[in-house]
Structures are given as C-alpha cells and as structure tokens.
C-alpha cells in the first residue's frame, strides 16, 4: 500500500508530461496547454482513487463472498444439499 502511495506523484507527473504533447483535433475553443495538462494530472489522481476504491470494495466483497461460500459448503456437507 505504501509503495502504491509513493507511485501516485510519479504517475501524476508522467501523465501530465505526456499530455503536454497532446492537442486534440476539432476543438474550437482553445483548451490551453497547461490547463489541458492539469486535467490529465487530475484525471490520474481521480483514477487512482477510483481503482483503489474498486480494489478495496472487491477485496471486502471477496472476503464476504468467501465466508458465504464457506458457509454454503459447510451446509452442503451437513445435509448434502447447497443452501439457496
């Protein structure tokens, strides 16, 4: 987890720097250079949070799913039929 947190600033800088080169076609308003880059950096930050939240959710969910399946298997062993 600590390693992951250390990676965040690096990801931000890399994504920000990458987007410095990117200028979209067909934009009629000027998206700016710096302001476009901070969108990328902000996106990276939000994305990290989003993935982390999903990961944490799935870990928690997996935990409950595991205990659920364990209970199910115990019940199956006991009476020979799975619980619905």
């Amino acid at each position, binding site marked *: 987890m600590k390693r992951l947190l250390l990676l965040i600033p690096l990801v931000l800088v890399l994504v*920000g720097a990458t987007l*410095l*080169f*990117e*200028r*979209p*076609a067909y*934009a*009629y*308003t*000027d*998206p*700016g*250079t*710096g*302001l*476009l*880059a*901070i*969108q*990328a*950096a*902000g*996106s990276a930050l*939000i*994305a990290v949070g*989003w993935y982390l939240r999903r990961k944490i959710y799935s870990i928690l969910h997996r935990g409950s799913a595991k205990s659920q399946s364990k209970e199910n298997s115990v019940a199956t062993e006991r009476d020979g039929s799975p619980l619905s």
Partner: protein
Amino acid sequence: MPQQISPGSYEQGELELTFRDPAGQLLLTQHHALRHVHPAAVEDTLAFLASPLCASLELSGDLIPSKVDDSAADPQKISNELWLKHPRIDPISYPWEWTVAQWRAAAELTLRIAKQAIDAGWVLKDATPLNVLFAGPRPIFVDVLSFERRNPKSSVWLAYGQFVRTFLLPLVAAKFLKWPLQATLFSRDGYEPAMLYKALPRWRCLTPDLFDVITLAALFERSSGKRQEARRPFKDTDPELAKHILHKRIDRLGKQIRHVAEAGSESQWSEYTRSANHYQAADISSKQEFVRSVLERCSPAHVLDIGANTGTYSLLASKSGAEVVAIDSDEAAIEMLWRAATQQKQQITALVANIARPTPAAGWKNREQLSLLERLTGKFDLVLMLAVIHHLILREQLPLTHIGELCASLTHRWLVLEWVPPSDPMYQEWLRGRDELYGSLSESDLLNAFSPFFRVLDRTELGNQRVVLLFERKAGEASPLEAGPA
C-alpha cells in the same frame, strides 16, 4: 470552413452577433434571436433539440427555448441549412456589467448544465460567461450550439480551459488583485494562468484552490513551450471512469468558484439608503408615495432606473408590474439589488454601468457586443432618475441640455427626475468651490433645458427642498440617439 450567410437571407438592419463557432451564427432581429446552423452541424443540433436533456433544460428555464424556423431559410436554396428562433432577452447584458454574485450564478449554471449534459451523453464544447444572459435576475444559458455529442471514452473536457480562463481566473483576479470584473471587456478569452501566476504573491498561488489552475497550469505551460507542434489523440478511458472523472472535475470547479466568489463587500453607496442623513423619514415616505402614484398612473411596461442604488424604486416599479432595468456604477449596491430581486422573484435586470460613461461596444469591428446605449435607447416607457442629476452636473460636468437629450432618447413617454438644489448637503459636498459655475443652478434652469424634449406633468417638493418631477416627452421630438440599430 463554415458556410457564410448570404446577405439576402436575412433582413436589413439585423445584427450578426456571433460568428466564431464553426457550427453557426447568431443574428438579432427586433423580436427574436435567429440562429443559423451550418449544414455540418444540423444533424447533431436537431438530435440535441429532440433529446430529453434539451427538454428538461428548457423546462427548468436554464436553457433558452428554440424553435426550428422554416420561414427564415433562403427559398432559393434546396439546402440542409437550419434556422432556429429564440425569444429575445432584453437587454443583453455582458459579463463586464455583472457583479461577483452574478458571475457566480452564471458559472454555477454553466457547471450544472455541463454535468447534466455529461450524464445524458453530451458535452459543452465551450464554457464562457458570454453563453449566459440574465433575464431579470435569473441567468439563462443561451447557446444551444454549445452542446455536442460526448465521446464516452474521453475523460477530457475541452472547454475546461476556457471555463478556468473566462470564469474562474477573472474572479480570482477580482478577489485577490482587485482587478475589476469590468476589465474583462478587454479580454475576450479571459486570463491566462501565467498572467495571474506573475501577478499574485507566490504563497497565494500555492493555496489549494489556486495551485492546480494557476501554479501547475503555468508551470506546465512554461515547460511545454516549444513542443506545441506535436499532436496526437487522447487515449481512451473506461467509460464509467471517464464519466466519474468529468463529474469530479466539475465538482472541483464548482468548489473553486464558491471560494473565490464569496458574498460581496459594502460600499459608500450600498449603505447610502441606510446612512443618508440628508433625508428624513417623512421625505423618503413622500418621495416613495409620489413614485408609487406615478407608477399607478402611468402603468409602464418597461422601466429604466438610472442610479438605482440598492433598488428601492426598481422594486417598487417591478412590483407594479413593470420589467425593470436597473443600472448603477456601484457594484456593491447592484449586488444587493440583484440579491433582493432574486429573493423576491422580481423582473429586474441589474447592471453595473455608469450612464455618464456607458459601456462601450466591443469585439470584432466593435459589432460583437453592443454599447450600453445601443441596448437601452428607446426601450422604456418610463425612466427613473432619482438623486442622480447632481452627480451628472458636478462630478461628470455635463450640461443640463445634454442630460435632457439623453433622457429623451431613453424613454418614449415618461421621465421621473429628482432635482437636487445647490443648497442640498450632497450638492454642497461636490460643489468644491465651483460656486460661480454651479452654485446658482435652479429648478427653472432644469425646466428650460428640458423644455425642448419634455413638459412637466406633476411635481412634489420634499421637506429637504428636493423636488421630484414627472415629465412627459413631447411628441415628435425624436433624439438623434434613437437612430441606433438595437
């Protein structure tokens, strides 16, 4: 390249106000705003107009209603061009005539619409205060061509930069640098982050609200310098994540706007009504009674309140059923007026403007944004000019005949004017030793100067020797100013 409108396709005298958007142009006619949509944008525009998003925004009053107008199309052409007709919002107001609170209301409207659009599969391709007009105290988004289909895999909002430059940074500059919002008249596309990075103290640029939009943006801009020519498309993002990112970005902008556009400060004039010691309660009551009786007698539909201050008389006029335009050069006073009109749901358009130095025309060839007088001339049944004339005489050094001529160009029927005699304490305060020039002006000088344009219908003298007069414009005395196109 956008198709140009043929000169024959709209009537003489109409104004072409917007033309930068490749999707279409806007024309102003006497009663409507006509939008010409170029063929390449017709399909998307029609799809947007048929969308539940458009219906819901129109229903809530956040978006101007649009109707397809077949009568405006050029009959000579079998073309796929599209004309839309919108109701006209009068007067047009520009961001450089708004208070901080109005800027905030316009910004919040834009962000609210941007968020709803994202959820519905659309996106705002531009986000500038010029897309918003005030109809009474309420902001309305008026550019239906701002909506385009959203790429669900894109987490980038291309109009983000424009929103920051044109909404957020002017508010930042107004709050921390005291750059007046009126100065935005000179910068069509707002302020660049680097501009504010140089002007603001370093510690201010490091505060959480400004770090990304000023410091980081300015640094990225500086480091990108010579690499502008390299272009490639954005990478795709998971659609769910893309939407999440866009929402978060808009929420952050909303928070930044709220922080820099806090409630306004007081000024000498915003406190004037409460602090005026040259007015006794009985005088105020007599003046209000006279104005109220004039409003009942004349039943004006459109009233202009010049020097409206915090809006006592604008509110009276509005409550009598008139649509009111209230102008004052004091931002704090207009902000109070706008808040009162919003809270009391009164049809008052409040503008920060000085009638003696009216907002000039601006933009390309000075025809993109109209001057204040072009927007106001000949639009009103009744003009209120209460406790203003001594400002115009002593501070602006305007001759009475010029003031009379201007009033005659603004109203086509009535004028209510408060005469402030030289003995008045406010008059004396600004006389400043110029007694020879202004010390002996009297009510009869006023009547003489106004007589080519107006006749007196009624008058009342207050206890403090001020006089409130009801004038009626003489028929056939059109002012040269009325020849304007608006």
